[in-house]
């Protein structure tokens, strides 16, 4: 960009975003206090979605609160049968974590589809959830696991069930003064199967549609528990409860998977410039079948 002179003759050099005050709190409570106090403030996590929007000036803020210095928000731990992931844990660190691969293999597999290596190095778990893009993988994984979001503010910590977290297109249940501190993903029984498939025009693009499956199958080949989640087809991730009900309590075979995937026809998908609703409905069924087949195979069933 050429150097730009703003009114008043101040040579400000090459700048894309509108001016803002930058804050880099070192303590979590300071971050919460800044967010509660400052007008028109936004939190900066990994910046892989927010900064493009600022560069385009879709987003103009007076204050930017950088969470990058808050070590309290980084890392994973198993708490009460769930994998707790700090909001500022980088996607890359989760992608290569043996603990994530063991406890929440669906998350590990989904991460390979999140943007590119260069964006996963910076992008965070909490940032993806707060951004809540309907085609994003990480909100879909949280929907699949029935995750719990820990929302922090000066008023304390509030737990939000993920099914109540996404309230609409790129909208969440977070209050203006709340930030995500962590998310809990309940760990499924060891030996459960998972599957994750999405269709995008190029590797790393947002998916036109995708499906995530979790299957817990008993030694008698009967499905003890099933979760099927679609994303990219509605304003927020969608659990296909009809498919889950069809699978649960019944023997798992190819016909059962076909019938469950067919339940994805019941959805009424969005249409946009990337794909029409009918095409998305077709993808939803095909990707559901692939995800369920992978999950069955990994649960030890050749369906």
């Amino acid at each position, binding site marked *: 960009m050429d150097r730009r002179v703003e009114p008043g003759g101040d040579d*400000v050099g090459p700048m894309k975003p509108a001016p803002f005050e*930058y804050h880099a709190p070192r303590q979590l409570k300071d971050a919460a206090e800044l967010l509660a106090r400052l007008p028109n403030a936004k939190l*900066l996590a990994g910046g892989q979605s927010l*900064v493009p929007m600022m560069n*385009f000036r879709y987003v103009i803020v007076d204050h930017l609160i950088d969470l990058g210095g808050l070590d309290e928000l980084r890392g994973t731990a198993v708490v009460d049968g769930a994998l707790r992931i700090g909001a500022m844990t980088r996607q890359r660190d989760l992608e290569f974590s043996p603990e994530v691969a063991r406890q929440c293999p669906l998350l590990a597999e989904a991460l390979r589809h999140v943007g*590119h290596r*260069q*964006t996963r*190095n*910076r992008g965070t778990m909490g940032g993806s959830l707060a951004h809540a893009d309907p085609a994003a993988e990480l909100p879909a994984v949280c929907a699949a696991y029935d995750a719990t979001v820990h929302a922090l503010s000066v008023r304390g910590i509030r737990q939000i069930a993920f099914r109540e977290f996404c309230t609409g297109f790129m909208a969440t249940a977070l209050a203006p003064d709340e930030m995500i501190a962590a998310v809990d993903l309940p760990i499924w029984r060891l030996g459960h199967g998972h599957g994750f498939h999405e269709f995008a025009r190029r590797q790393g693009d947002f998916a036109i549609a995708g499906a995530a499956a979790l299957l817990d199958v008993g030694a008698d080949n009967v499905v003890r528990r099933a979760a099927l989640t679609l994303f990219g087809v509605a304003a927020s991730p969608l659990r296909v409860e009809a498919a889950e009900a069809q699978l649960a309590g019944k023997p798992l075979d190819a016909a059962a998977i076909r019938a469950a995937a067919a339940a994805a026809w019941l959805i009424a998908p969005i249409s946009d410039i990337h794909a029409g609703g009918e095409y998305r409905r077709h993808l939803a069924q095909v990707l559901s079948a692939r995800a369920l087949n992978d999950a069955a195979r990994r649960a030890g069933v050749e369906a």
Partner: protein
Amino acid sequence: MGKQATRVMVNGKSYARVVDARLTLADFLRHELNLTGTHLGCEHGVCGACTVLVDGRTARSCLMFAVQANGCAVTTVEGLAPDGQLSVLQQAFIDNHGLQCGFCTPGMLMTLTELLGDTPEPSEQDVREALTGNLCRCTGYAGIVAAALDAAQRLRGTVAKPGSP
């Protein structure tokens, strides 16, 4: 409004500046430090031309503010050949026609430098997947993929460098 002090180690040299908080790391490198090897294409995180290493990991420098790099070590394409001696990867780009206009090349080199560090024996698929974050409109990628695989072999010491005895 929004001036902030930042101290960044770039290619082994420490720089302290007071900058606008909204100055991206890419513009900081190019306009404050005159390190114009880092190229800016789309400026919204799609093309990958501005890729640099931040604490050893690739990042799009158009999607970071210079103030976020405070205390970090940044490597730019200039850092790959500090004394004018091309890196093995850079030489492989020349030998395999891995560039034509050269605009995307700095980002390609930084992405592949990280890949070869993490994965000394990458498959063609590994290379192609790593390159999905970098756009090239000249080469059709074939020469770049060949250069990466060639560099990986040379770094493993299985093929003698051209010109060496």
